Each structure stands twice: as structure tokens, then as C-alpha cells.
């Protein structure tokens, strides 16, 4: 509707599956450089919200504006190209390719058919790959076939693939699920580092982890916002405890 300073403005977003409203008139704004965490009971609609933003699911009603462009009308790759990156819950990388190649494929050049036929590995590409690899702590593994990475490393690699695209909005669905305690800490550091010049939305159930990263927390419940605010406030919210955290 209105022009905003927000990177992402979700307004009155609704989606229903056979009459069941998984997301119900949701309104939510994300600031520049903000790291927002979405929490909420299983089935609250968190993943669905990300699906809607990145175009995987089409909304029934409402609008999603990213830097004042309407996303609901764009197709997935157009949304990506406009600057939105999405990480899936299970690590989604090309197991047949090396770490280097995984990152290279994600480099935002040669994205068209003919561009890809003439794509050359330039110094610029090389530099970017190395920089990102350093960020995600995989410099030593660049030539390894990515199938051989540990689970945590795969998660990082996928984040790295998104970083290659220099997205302005990064969305991560349960990035530390299945990670060891140490990897969780490292991932928290990683996220704190990379949100310096972009906005990040993270879905997570691990409250310890959320504490470490969240600027602001949004609690979803039955497709609606139940509470929103800084971690301490949300954690203390009686309704949140009731439906989500438990006594």
C-alpha cells in the first residue's frame, strides 16, 4: 500500500489450504539490518510465511512488499533476483558438486541460458567464492565433494550459497536443527556477522540460540501474530508460555 522504509512489508497476508487458514491476515515489517526470529508452535504457519515471501506458495490475499516491490506477483527466480534468499530446513546443496562449485553456481552471473553457456570463472568470481568460504568456515574444504561434508557444514554451505547472491533479505528455516552445541554457537556468530548489511529472518525453536541472535522476536500462532518484541518480553508473555514455551 504505502511506501515504507522497511525492507520487507507484509500486510494482511492470508493463505488458506482447502479452507484452512495457515496464515491469517498477517502484518509484519522488517527493518534494514534487522535480524528477526520467528517462533511459534509447530504448525503455526512459520514455514508457510517464508514460502509465501519467496514465492513457493501463492497467497490467497494480502501483499508482500520488498523494497516497495510487490513480490506476490513475481515468480521464484524473479524474487531471488530482486534480492531475497531462502534457506530450506534440510540442507539443500548439490551433493554431486564440490564446495567450490556449489558456491560458484550460486554466483549471480550467467543466470540466463546463454549466459550460462558462456560463463567464465573470472578473478572476481574466485575472490567472491573465497571470501564467502571464509565466512562460512569452509575454506579448507573448497575442493571437497559436498556430499562428504558434515551436516552442520552442509547447512553452512547452503547459507554460503545464499551469501554469494548478496541478498538484502535472507530467510533461514531452522538453520541449527540437528547441529551440535558447538556448531550452534558458531552459526550464531555467523549470523551475527552476516546481518551487518542485510536483513535476516530466522525460524528457530531453540530458545538458547534465539537469545543469541534475535534483535526482535515474532511469535506466530494459528497463522496470526501472538506477540512481538524483544526476546525477554516475549519469553515472559503468558500467552506465549501457554501455547509455545510450556510451563
Amino acid at each position: 500500500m504505502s511506501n515504507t522504509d522497511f525492507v520487507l512489508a507484509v500486510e494482511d497476508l492470508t493463505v488458506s489450504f482447502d479452507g484452512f487458514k495457515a496464515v491469517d491476515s498477517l502484518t509484519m515489517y522488517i527493518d534494514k539490518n534487522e535480524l528477526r526470529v520467528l517462533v511459534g508452535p509447530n504448525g503455526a504457519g512459520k514455514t508457510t510465511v517464508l514460502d509465501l515471501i519467496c514465492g513457493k506458495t501463492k497467497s490467497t490475499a494480502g501483499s508482500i512488499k520488498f523494497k516497495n516491490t510487490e513480490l506476490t506477483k513475481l515468480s521464484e527466480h524473479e524474487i531471488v533476483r530482486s534480492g531475497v534468499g531462502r534457506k530450506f530446513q534440510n540442507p539443500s546443496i548439490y551433493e554431486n558438486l564440490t564446495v567450490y562449485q556449489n558456491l560458484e553456481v550460486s554466483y549471480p552471473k550467467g543466470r540466463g541460458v546463454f549466459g550460462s553457456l558462456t560463463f567464465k570463472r573470472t578473478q572476481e568470481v574466485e575472490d567472491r567464492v573465497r571470501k564467502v568460504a571464509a565466512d562460512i568456515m569452509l575454506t579448507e574444504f573448497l575442493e571437497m565433494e559436498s556430499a562428504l561434508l558434515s551436516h552442520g557444514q552442509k547447512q553452512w554451505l547452503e547459507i554460503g550459497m545464499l551469501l554469494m547472491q548478496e541478498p538484502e533479505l535472507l530467510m533461514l528455516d531452522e538453520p541449527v536443527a540437528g547441529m551440535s552445541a558447538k556448531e550452534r554457537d558458531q552459526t550464531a556468530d555467523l549470523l551475527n556477522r552476516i546481518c551487518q548489511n542485510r536483513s535476516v529472518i530466522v525460524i528457530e525453536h531453540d530458545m538458547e540460540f534465539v537469545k543469541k541472535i534475535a534483535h526482535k522476536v515474532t511469535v506466530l500462532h494459528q497463522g496470526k501474530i501472538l506477540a512481538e518484541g524483544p526476546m525477554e518480553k516475549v519469553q515472559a508473555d503468558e500467552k506465549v508460555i501457554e501455547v509455545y514455551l510450556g510451563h
Partner: protein
Amino acid sequence: MFEIENLQVSYGQSQVIHGLNFKANKNETLAIMGRNGMGKTTLFKSLMGILPSKASKATVDGVDLQGSATHERVMKGLAYVPQGRWIFPNMTVQENIETGLEKSASGEIPDDIFALFPVLHEMRKRKGGNLSGGQQQQLAIARALVTNPKVLLLDEPTEGIQPSIIKDIAKVLNEIRKMREITIIVSEQVLSFTMEVADRIIVIDKGRFIHEDTRDNVDAAKVKSYLSV
């Protein structure tokens, strides 16, 4: 009594489980803890007969499991909640649970299941594949429980589950154990949950057990250090 001696599992050339031994009693909950890729899932799959394995002994209440196919092991009392849940996506919640009724004479889902998981009753007509992750986890546990197992294997049951339900699952596991005289083996990476359910904690590392504690005197610092190398 669930007994395993010298279990070995390999994927092709590479051996992943190196001669594991353990015994678990009735009414005992055993937690297998370990970082990613240390072999927890592999261990469970081999116990279920999904992966081929070698062992010098594998018995449930003295009944030999070796040479049995997966479904025969279920008949002998094993039940499995896999990591990733493996819900039958095109079947309704109710049908998903019913698949676990192979042994049951009546073919009816016992009422106590829905008592444990009210959300499943509410969603019993919905397709399993459309549930959220947490809902699916509950469904997977329910499906395993209706087989009336002697040994229940749960592979990282808290992965992706909201905090309150993690607590619920812990309660449920404790309750089940009381109700049913059952051995529970659960794999985990998170100590807090384990502490609520396990009588004994074993740490697995690269396919070997490297540490064992009973709940009452857990060396939390040490376990944590193993888990976060």
C-alpha cells in the same frame, strides 16, 4: 531386556559402527548422545534391520533378532520413530496410525493414543504430509506406540519441535514407560531433554561408545564437552 553385542555396520567399504555393546532393561530409558554423523541414525537403522549389520548377539527378551527382516523385528517387539519422521504423506493421520496395527487383533486405535496426543485426534482426517513438522513428530511416535513395542527407538525426537511439546514428549515418554513396561532408546544432541527422560546416557563418537553415565550422577560438563567438540 534388549541386548546387543559387538554390532558392526558399514556403508560399502566404510565402517560406521564399530562393535557396539549394550543392554537395556525393561522400564529403562537409554539415551544415546552424539554429535552429527557419529552414527546414531545408523545404529537405529541397523537395529531395525533397515541396514545390514553384523553382531554376535541381538536379542529382545531372549528372542533373537538376527536374520530377521524389518517387519519381523517389529513383530518381535521393536518400534521405530525415525529421524525425519517418515510419515506416509498421502494417508490421513488416522490411517498413518493404523499402519502400526499389524500385530493388533482388533485393528482399532486404542483410545489412550489420542489421549496422549490430542492434536492428532483433532487432525485425524488430514493428510499426514500436510502436517507441520512438530505434528508429524507426534504422529510418528503414536504410530510406533500402537505396535505395542517392547523396545521403542526414537531418533532425535525433539528435532524441530516447539519447546512445550518437547516437554510434553518427555512427559509422554516417562508415562509410557510406566504404563507399558517398555525399553526406550532415544538419540539426542540436547542434554536438557535427555536429562528429563533418560536413566542412562551413553555418548557415541565415530561409531564407538566413549562415555556412559546414569542420570543420577551425570557428569554434565564432560558430556557437553563430548557433544560440542
